[in-house]
C-alpha cells in the first residue's frame, strides 16, 4: 500500500492502452457499426419501396383484370350477335339455293315434257300418215300430197 513508481508506471500503461484503443480498436468497430446501420436502413427503405410497388402492381393487375372481363363480355355478346347473323344469312342463302334448284328442276321438267310432246307429235303424225296411207293406199300419192301432209303434221 505504498505509493511508489508503480503510480507512474500505471499512468504510462494507461496512456498507452488508451492510445492503442483510440488508434486500432475504436475506429474500425464504430465504422463497421455505422456501415451496418446504414445498410439496414437502406434495406428497410428498399423493402418499403418494394411493398409500395407491390401494392401498385396489385391494383394495376386488378384494374386490368376488370377491363379484360368487360372486354370479354363485350366480345361474347358480339360473337353471339354475329352467330345469329350468320345463321340468318345461311338460312337465306339456303332458301335461295333451294328455290333456284326447284326452279331449275321445274325448267328441266318443262323441257323434258316439251321434248316428249315433240317426239309424241312426230310419232302420232307418222302413225296418222301410216294409218291414212293404209286407208287411202291407192288414192293417196305420198309425193303428190306431201305438202298437205306436212301441213297436217304441223297442225298436230
Amino acid at each position, binding site marked *: 500500500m505504498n505509493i511508489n513508481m508503480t503510480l*507512474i508506471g500505471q499512468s504510462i500503461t494507461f496512456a498507452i492502452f488508451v492510445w492503442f484503443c*483510440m488508434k486500432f480498436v475504436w475506429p474500425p468497430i464504430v465504422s463497421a457499426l455505422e456501415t451496418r446501420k446504414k445498410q439496414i436502413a437502406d434495406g428497410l427503405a428498399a423493402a418499403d419501396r418494394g411493398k409500395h410497388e407491390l401494392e401498385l402492381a396489385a391494383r394495376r393487375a386488378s384494374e386490368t383484370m376488370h377491363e379484360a372481363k368487360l372486354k370479354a363480355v363485350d366480345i361474347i355478346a358480339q360473337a353471339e350477335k354475329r352467330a345469329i347473323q350468320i345463321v340468318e344469312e345461311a338460312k337465306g342463302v339456303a332458301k335461295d339455293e333451294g328455290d333456284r334448284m326447284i326452279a331449275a328442276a321445274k325448267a328441266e321438267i318443262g323441257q323434258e315434257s316439251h321434248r316428249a310432246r315433240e317426239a309424241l307429235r312426230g310419232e302420232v303424225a307418222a302413225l296418222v300418215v301410216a294409218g291414212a296411207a293404209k286407208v287411202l293406199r291407192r288414192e293417196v300419192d305420198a309425193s303428190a300430197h306431201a305438202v298437205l301432209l306436212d301441213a297436217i303434221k304441223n297442225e298436230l
Partner: protein
Amino acid sequence: MSAEAHTSTEYIKHHLQNLTYGQHADGSWGIAQTAQEAKDMGFMAINLDTMGFSILLGAFFLFFFHKVAKSAATGVPGGLQNFVEWIVEFVDSSVKGSFTARNPMVAPLALTIFIWIFLMNLMDLVPIDWIPGLASAMGLPFMKIVASTDPNATFGMSLTVFALVIYYSIKMKGLGGFVGELTLQPFGKWGMPANLLLEGVNLIAKPVSLALRLFGNMYAGEMIFILIAIMFSGGAVLALTGGVLQWAWAVFHILIITLQAFIFMTLTIVYLDMAHQEHH
C-alpha cells in the same frame, strides 16, 4: 498460505502486501521479503504484481477487441463480434449522453477505462488463496492479484484523467480562461482567495475522489473476502458458513465491480465534458 502457519493478522497483512521490487536498505536491489522492507524502499520501487496483472489484463482486452475490430464485418455479426459491439455501443451511448463537445479521444478513453477496470476488479472473484499460494510455491513472498486494490493503479488512472482535464480546459478556454475559472467565480474578482480555495478544492477533488472511490470499494471487498477466508480454518461449521458467505459476497461483488467500472467511466466523461465547456 495455510492459515495454521499464520495468525489471522499475519494472514490479512500478507494478503494486503504487494510484491515490491526496489532498493533494499543495504543498497542491493531485489524483491522486498517483508512489509517493512517494502515500506523502506520508498518511492523508487515498483509493485510487480500490480503492474504485471494490470498490463496482462489490459493487453488481453486490447488483443481481444483488436482481433474483433480487424475482422469487423458489416454483414451479420458473429457471437464474439456481437459481444464486442454490444459493449462498444453501450460505451458510445454513455459518451453521447454525457459528452456534448466533439473529441474523438473520449469514447476510446471511456471504453479502455470501463473494460480495464472491470477486468482488474474481476480478479477479485478468483479465490484469494489460489494465485498467492501458487506464487509462494514459486518463492515469491507476496502476490496481490487485484490491481485496483493498489492505490498506485487507481491514482495512476485518475491522475492521467486529471492531466487530460487540465489539458483540455486550457486548450478549450485558453490559459486565461482556465485561470479565470479558478479565480473569478463564484464571488467575482474581489473574492479571489475564496474563489481559488473553493475552485481549487473542486478541481483537486476530481482525481482524488475518482481514485479513492474505486480503491476503497475494491479494498473493502477484498478485505471481506480475506475475512471470510479466515473462517475456513475455524472448524467444519464455520468453514461451511464461510463457503456460503463467500459465494454470496462474490455474487454481490459482481455488481460492485461492474458498477465501479461504470462510475469511473461516467465520471471521467463528465469531467472531460466540463473541461470542454465554456462557462462565461
